[in-house]
């Protein structure tokens, strides 16, 4: 599986130090991704991306698995990661903490990303039509996913707010932070929390795979679209890997169009049809919401 | 010798007992006890004497089952401690009162609890636990302490007492336990002659209930005390019984021979 490959190509995660130091001389490109859904598939996907970029750009590529959102942002800040596939919120955080970091690209689906609200059958909640309908979530037991997740926390928080529900005050008790989208489903299914919000992509794949009891848990609302995941590049890349490297990298990402089976498989792993250009301004709204909610300072 | 069939069961009967402590002993492997055969009748009061290192404490430990013999058989109050079931051993032990040479009191505990520990063999768990919270049978404990002369210390921490006071706490514990057999290892070593005399008298005392005199096996360094309070003197030397006489018959020469310094030095 994915993680098996991890250890092969990066010469075991633990050996990072010595190996990384050497590779740094050779100018390895260090890529990473935030530890979002289904983390062991994440490794497989990133390994494949690494292979693609290595072939495309003629550099060595090392995948660095990082299990924590904040740690990943810090590592990007210290210049230990070159190319990271971040969520909307973490991407903004990373750019704010790293001057000169560039937004490189995004998936076609990231332009119009969505979250879903799910509820336990016994909570007696009916599916709602619009954001304002979320007002019925007042006084329910509610859980987010991970603290730094855009689709599992930031945007659901925002939409709740829009509906006049203050997560800190208007729910039944404090909101939970399940830690991941999968656990959000489990916890709502167990009835501990009546309602939860998560990444639409995960919800769809779990229901398709049949690993969630749709009798017990059902979707009550799919949010409007917002921009989410994107790749950002470290400002130090050009200096270390050669003038114009950032531009080449952006192009390599955009060139990923599924023209051969491997590329197609890679795109599928990302759940995307194509990679499209992205601008910093695409995430201005995220930044604004983040600031309002106190998640960006 | 009396007919064995009519003879009462001895309180203590040791047959060819040998105890060899493991490890590189200092005696080139000489066992601490070496084929001891000894028989003590109920009600007898026996003083165990002998030079330091002779095996007195080891012999007392055998009698309450804290030391396991390497070979030989022991029979104490009708039971072999080395072969008894754990329930049987516990029943036996609650009939034996021991005063250890190092006292082995629980220092941080108050005196009253250390005395009450003499009841543990008969108290149930909960009673024991309850008493730790709020001491039970305090009057009895106070009475026992009064008999050894330290009633005033009832509520003090045990490790704050003077050496002799601590020794008397250990004795008071045996008094409340009121056992059939007392095994006392130098029980008065830290007491002045007058108090030592008093306490020996208490240990030898007749039991309060309908039982006969308590059986007493006590190791002593003070020959005068032994002669005054005991019926019989057993002398150990290098793990062997070298003397076994009625108390009145022990003469100066026997004493000197018993304690003679080893050629070792």
């Amino acid at each position: 599986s994915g993680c098996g490959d991890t250890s092969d190509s990066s010469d075991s995660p633990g050996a990072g130090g010595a190996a990384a130091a050497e590779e740094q001389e050779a100018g390895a490109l260090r890529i990473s991704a935030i530890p979002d859904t289904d983390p062991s598939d994440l490794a497989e996907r990133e390994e494949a991306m690494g292979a693609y970029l290595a072939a495309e750009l003629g550099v060595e590529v090392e995948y660095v698995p990082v299990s924590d959102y904040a740690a990943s942002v810090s590592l990007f800040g210290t210049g230990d990661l070159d190319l990271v596939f971040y969520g909307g919120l973490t991407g903004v955080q990373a750019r704010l903490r790293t001057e000169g970091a560039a937004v490189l690209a995004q998936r076609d689906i990231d332009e119009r990303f969505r979250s879903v609200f799910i509820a336990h059958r016994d909570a007696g909640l009916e599916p709602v039509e619009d954001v304002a309908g979320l007002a019925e979530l007042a006084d329910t037991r509610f859980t987010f996913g991970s603290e730094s997740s855009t689709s599992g926390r930031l945007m659901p928080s925002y939409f709740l707010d829009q509906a006049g529900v203050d997560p800190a005050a208007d729910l039944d008790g404090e909101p939970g932070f399940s830690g991941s989208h999968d656990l959000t489903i489990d916890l709502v299914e167990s009835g501990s929390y009546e309602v939860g919000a998560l990444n639409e992509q995960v919800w769809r794949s779990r229901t398709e795979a049949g690993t969630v009891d749709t009798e017990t848990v059902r979707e009550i609302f799919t949010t409007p679209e917002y921009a989410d995941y994107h790749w950002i590049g470290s400002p130090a890349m050009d200096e270390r890997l050669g003038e114009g490297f950032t531009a080449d990298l952006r192009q390599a990402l955009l060139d990923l169009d599924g023209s051969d089976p491997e590329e197609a498989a890679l795109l599928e792993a990302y759940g995307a049809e194509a990679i499209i250009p992205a601008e910093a301004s695409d995430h201005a709204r995220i930044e604004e919401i983040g600031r309002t909610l106190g998640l960006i300072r | 010798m009396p007919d064995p069939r009519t003879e009462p069961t001895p309180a203590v009967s040791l047959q060819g007992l040998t105890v060899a402590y493991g490890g590189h002993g200092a005696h080139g492997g000489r066992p601490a006890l070496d084929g001891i055969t000894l028989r003590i009748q109920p009600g007898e009061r026996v003083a165990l004497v002998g030079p330091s290192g002779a095996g007195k404490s080891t012999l007392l430990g055998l009698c309450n089952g804290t030391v396991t013999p390497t070979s030989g058989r022991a029979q104490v109050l009708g039971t072999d401690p080395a072969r008894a079931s754990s329930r049987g051993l516990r029943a036996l032990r609650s009939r034996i009162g021991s005063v250890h040479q190092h006292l082995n009191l629980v220092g941080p505990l108050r005196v009253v609890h250390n005395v009450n520990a003499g009841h543990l063999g008969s108290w149930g768990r909960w009673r024991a636990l309850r008493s730790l919270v709020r001491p039970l049978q305090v009057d009895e404990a106070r009475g026992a302490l009064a008999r050894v002369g330290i009633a005033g210390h009832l509520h003090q921490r045990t490790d704050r007492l003077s050496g002799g006071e601590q020794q008397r706490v250990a004795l008071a514990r045996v008094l409340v336990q009121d056992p059939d057999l007392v095994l006392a290892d130098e029980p008065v070593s830290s007491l002045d002659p007058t108090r030592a005399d008093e306490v020996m008298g208490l240990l030898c005392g007749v039991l309060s209930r309908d039982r006969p005199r308590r059986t007493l096996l006590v190791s002593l360094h003070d020959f005068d005390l032994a002669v005054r309070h005991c019926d019989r003197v057993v002398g150990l030397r290098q793990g062997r019984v070298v003397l076994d006489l009625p108390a009145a018959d022990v003469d100066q020469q026997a004493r000197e021979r018993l304690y003679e310094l080893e050629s070792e030095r």
Partner: protein
Amino acid sequence: MSSWLAEDGPLVNTRGWPMFVEFFAATLTPDLSADFLARIAEATLTTLSFAVLGTILAVAGGLVVGVLISETWWAAGSPSRGRSLASRTARQAGWLVARLSLALPRGIHEAVWALLLLSVLGRDPLVGVLAIAIPFGAITAKVYAEIIDESASGPFEALRASGARRGPALLYAVAPIALPDLSSYAFYRFECAVRSAVILGMVGAGGLGFELVLSFSGSRHGEVWTLIFTMVLLGAVVDRWGSGLRRAGGRRWRTGGTVLITAALAIAALAHLGPDLSRLFSDRTAGLFVGLVDDLLPPALPDGGWSRLLEDSLETLQMSLVAGSIAGVAAVGAAFVAARGRGTGASPVRRIAGTAARWLLLFTRSLPPPVWALLALFLFLPGPLPGALALAAYNFGILGRLCAEVVENLDRRSHDHLIAAGAPPFSAFAYGTLPQAGGRFLSYGLYRWEVALRETVVVGVVGAGGLGRLLEDQRVTFDYGGMTGTILALVVLSALVDLISNAVRRTLR
């Protein structure tokens, strides 16, 4: 703040029980695919490498600092009442400062340490090693100081009274007596390092904890159980090794063997990880350090100001207190059953019960707090109650082990004497062992309480507040000033617990 134990409404979550059962049913179907096992083997190797280096540093540092912050060292056997007021005050102040200054490294959770070190040193195995070594070292120092204080008594005073310096007196009179406890704790630390879940994943190093987080947050129960069983197994090996060493009773080859094996492991781990020591002193590090300090200072209040901080502190105290008390009482009971080597009169039934109890303890502490929290949520509705129970369950495993080893290492003569007087085992434990072990139990109990104070992971998922929650919030939003403020609050609480611990134990001594 809600008085949450008397909260109205239901507390129990009956709907989740099937999922609770389902989770445990997965014990029967752990993921044993070759792929996954290979991954675990790799992760085990990595984890062990970090754990060995981190523990060695923590224990070595803890020993030195532990001596220096022990009351024994500062009081140094001289009759303090007679000394001049000035020198007495100086001593007291010296001790207090030394002691409190350790509350800082200790009050910061490993995950926060990892983040801070990461922002300075970047990605290097060094970060993982230090993130284990620094907080563990500070805790070890505190625990060692207390062990030393509990062990120093008659013999130490006697040597001081014949003119020995405090160092040699400690060596001759305290070290031989405290050694079993010190080594028990070192082995326990090693076990903790193996389990330390968050840190290694954060620095991009993987490891067992990382794998567990992955499998757990992906809801793959089969994998979770395989990982937990691996940790239980590792824990059992460490446990056996430690107890074998302590019971060797002066068999020097075992001690020597342990030293050799440890040294070999350390070298192997260094070779495997290859930490880049030069990073510690590079210009880049200095620059990043200045930047970090700049971010951290000045401390700031959280949103909501003092009242939020106070409220969260109280809630944290409340939850940790409940967790600590439940764990403490249960652990003392477990220690009675689980302690090995009860000498003469241990019936087969007791021995079997002892083994079972030890495995139970090992198992409860091998399930990481987030897993306990999830399980608690299957049984109870969100709120501080499941949080407290999750913390209690985890800490029960830890405290039970620590207490059982205290009992094993104790001078058992008083206890055995009671047994020899016919006392039933429980009564002998209550009279002979508890009064002597009480101080140590209390110090471990309070120390776990302190740890529970800053346990961040659990509270989020159960939907409870508290300082841990607050700190986590600040951590993920990079509110460094706020983090400093919260950490200071935690440090104050830690220091308070520490002083209470000392005061109580002093009255017991």
